[in-house]
């Protein structure tokens, strides 16, 4: 087991970087932008997280995972606090993170400015398999709250698109 400095924010962040969103196992909660802060109190350590969607059913598991991992590393009285502000956005994902999603078969989110709904932008979702932009929406709502269902007109594969949010 790699020992991390459990008394610094950076150490805790490094430790928690092994925890993934259970529904997208290639990206950590830090890369997703859900891990916001760590606050040290006199006798406890408080981890601040934010949900992707208000009803995200993965939050309970993520909270349990964080507490279990911190306890395993000797952190005294770890606790997790859920905050809604600032509201999570896919714009917090780095290009590296987006590439991990693509490699996993999920089209990465476009910048949130794409979702102008009065006049839908001429933005194209690229197929994560063949990179074609000749794709179509099958359903705005996919297998999880954060994804939409697309299919590629060229390679004919269906795929998930991580909605910009």
């Amino acid at each position, binding site marked *: 087991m790699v020992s991390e400095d459990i008394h610094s924010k950076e150490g805790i962040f490094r430790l928690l970087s092994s925890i993934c969103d259970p529904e997208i196992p290639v990206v950590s909660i830090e890369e997703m932008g859900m891990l916001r802060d760590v606050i040290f109190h006199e006798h406890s350590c408080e981890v601040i997280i934010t*949900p992707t*969607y*208000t*009803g*995200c*059913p993965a939050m309970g598991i993520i909270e349990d995972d964080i507490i279990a991992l911190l306890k395993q590393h000797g952190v005294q009285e770890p606790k997790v606090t859920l*905050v*809604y*502000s*600032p*509201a*999570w956005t896919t714009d917090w994902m780095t290009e590296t993170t987006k590439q991990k999603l693509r490699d996993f078969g999920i089209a990465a989110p476009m910048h949130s400015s794409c*979702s102008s*709904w009065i006049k839908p932008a001429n933005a194209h979702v690229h197929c994560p398999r063949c990179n074609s932009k000749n794709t179509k929406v*099958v*359903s*705005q*709502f*996919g*297998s999880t*709250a954060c994804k939409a*269902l697309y299919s590629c007109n060229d390679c004919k594969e269906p795929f998930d698109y991580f*909605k910009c*949010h």
Partner: protein
Amino acid sequence: MTTHNALYKYLLFLGDNGLIQGHRLSELCSNGPILEEDLAMTNLALDHIGRAQAFLKYAGEVEGKGRTEDDLAYKRGEREFYNNLIAELPNGDFACTMARMLIVSSFEYLLFTALCTSKNATIAAIAAKAVKEAKYHFMHSRDWCYRLGKGTEESHRRLQNGFNEFWMFTGELFEMDADFAALANDGIGADLTVLKPQWLTLVQPILADSNIAIPNVDYMQTGSRNGIHTEYLGHILSEMQYLQRAYPDAKW
């Protein structure tokens, strides 16, 4: 001046709209017309229940009697619910469901946009999240309105029928009472009367493009601000609350 009780009631209004609408939509799980829409309905339900959880949790804190969001969801009677009546009405067919979602999601989009600037930081934070979700719900139901309204004779008839059924419940969305007015005045709640023309501006062109006539109604249903509901709410609660009523404080 906003009273403590007014804020509590307002949070119940926000939470109950999500809870009851979400519960209605969840009834379509495994009953959707096609697999993709089955998934969509349950996603919509999830977003609504997620926001209900956030608002009701805060309502419990404001009330200060140690009640959790689950206590408020499962242990209140019908007359203590403040959701808009439209949320509790049966789903009807798929066209009806989409007609209601267009009405509700466009209203929610405007309401949460307004609440993003609430002086109450918790309301503003939840609203900032909910507004993004409501936008997706709106786009989804709008696309279905176009598709059904401009589809076959039958799909058009069913969609028009849906709007005919629900239109008399649209007046209540914008109703203010003394508590709502006090909250709006203090910059905590939204002034719903201001939202009404915005809502019409948003919805009217979609109906026109979907070949749907705006129903003529002489009378708008009302009551929920005072906890007066249609007969349907009691039936929802009897199902939703059954377990906690039969086995109080059961956990799993």
